[in-house]
């Protein structure tokens, strides 16, 4: 009783994109999304019925993101230059990039815990299973991440209440 994959993309695509963007800079995040859904499409017929599809997708995205970061660390070109060159043509910069950047600047465990729990909606137990460590550790990491974000981003943004309507 597998649903058409189109429904899976429509239902979970936006969440997986948020997760990718929470852990990677654009356009690497978008590449991670593409690789995640292509891999998911390939494996989908063999997925157990009744599986938690969103957790499955986020797990794939988690590994794709790690692959992309590893591939970048092997490249000679500094990552920042690559990202800037490509995003200039992408025209995807928005007023919320400060928040994305602050999120991506968190220590890895906090960033992952915030992305997978608060953005993807996974339980702390699911987050712990994905990134390792205990459920309590995942909860603490998410809590610490949110607190750090509030101090680094929220305060600095309070004077510029511009919203994302400017996006095309």
């Amino acid at each position: 009783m597998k649903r058409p994959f189109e429904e899976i993309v429509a239902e979970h695509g936006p969440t997986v994109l948020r997760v990718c963007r929470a852990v990677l800079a654009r356009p690497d995040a978008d590449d991670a999304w593409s690789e995640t859904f292509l891999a998911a499409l390939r494996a989908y017929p063999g997925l157990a019925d009744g599986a938690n599809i969103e957790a499955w997708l986020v797990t794939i995205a988690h590994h794709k993101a790690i692959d992309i970061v590893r591939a970048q660390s092997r490249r000679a070109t500094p990552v920042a230059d690559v990202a800037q060159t490509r995003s200039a043509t992408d025209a995807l910069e928005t007023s919320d990039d400060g928040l994305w950047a602050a999120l991506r600047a968190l220590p890895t465990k906090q960033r992952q815990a915030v992305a997978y729990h608060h953005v993807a909606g996974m339980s702390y137990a699911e987050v712990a299973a994905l990134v390792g460590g205990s459920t309590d550790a995942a909860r603490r990491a998410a809590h610490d991440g949110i607190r750090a974000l509030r101090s680094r981003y929220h305060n600095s943004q309070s004077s510029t209440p511009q919203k994302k309507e400017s996006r095309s």
Partner: protein
Amino acid sequence: MINSSDPMLDPIIADDAEAMRRLRDQLVAAAEADQLLDVAYRTVDSPVGTLLVAATDQGLVRVAYEREDHDHVLQGLSELISPRILRAPRRLDQTARQLAEYFAGERHDFVLPLDFRLAHGFRRAVLGHLVLINYGRTESYQPDAGSRAMPSGGAQRRKARRLRRRPGGEGGFARA
């Protein structure tokens, strides 16, 4: 599933619809390149309502009316052919163009590759074609098309009735 418990994250939770469209299109192209798109579909506006047309890499495999519930039809295709189904209009460009010509009264026969893997599915496609003519006669097609289309339409209607009277009728797939 959105479960942001902190309003600070709202800008991140908000959907990026433009990016989703772009990424979805890229996914369709990549899936086709990797031969992972088992069933492509699109909808076509017509005088008899929105039609769903679905094709495998071999050809047209299903035509469905709105009243059949397109979501239900796609679920049936997912179970009978493959769940690797994406909305991919390009694979069905030719089908859409021929349907448009048909409803404009410029075409009387369809020249399309057909997928026979579902005997019932194929018959549904054929019957769908014949029933279109039936509908056209009582609705908007006939006045626009003029008398030129009538003999063909009448003949195909008779054929449709013959087909539907055959033993076995519409099989399990008809309900999909």
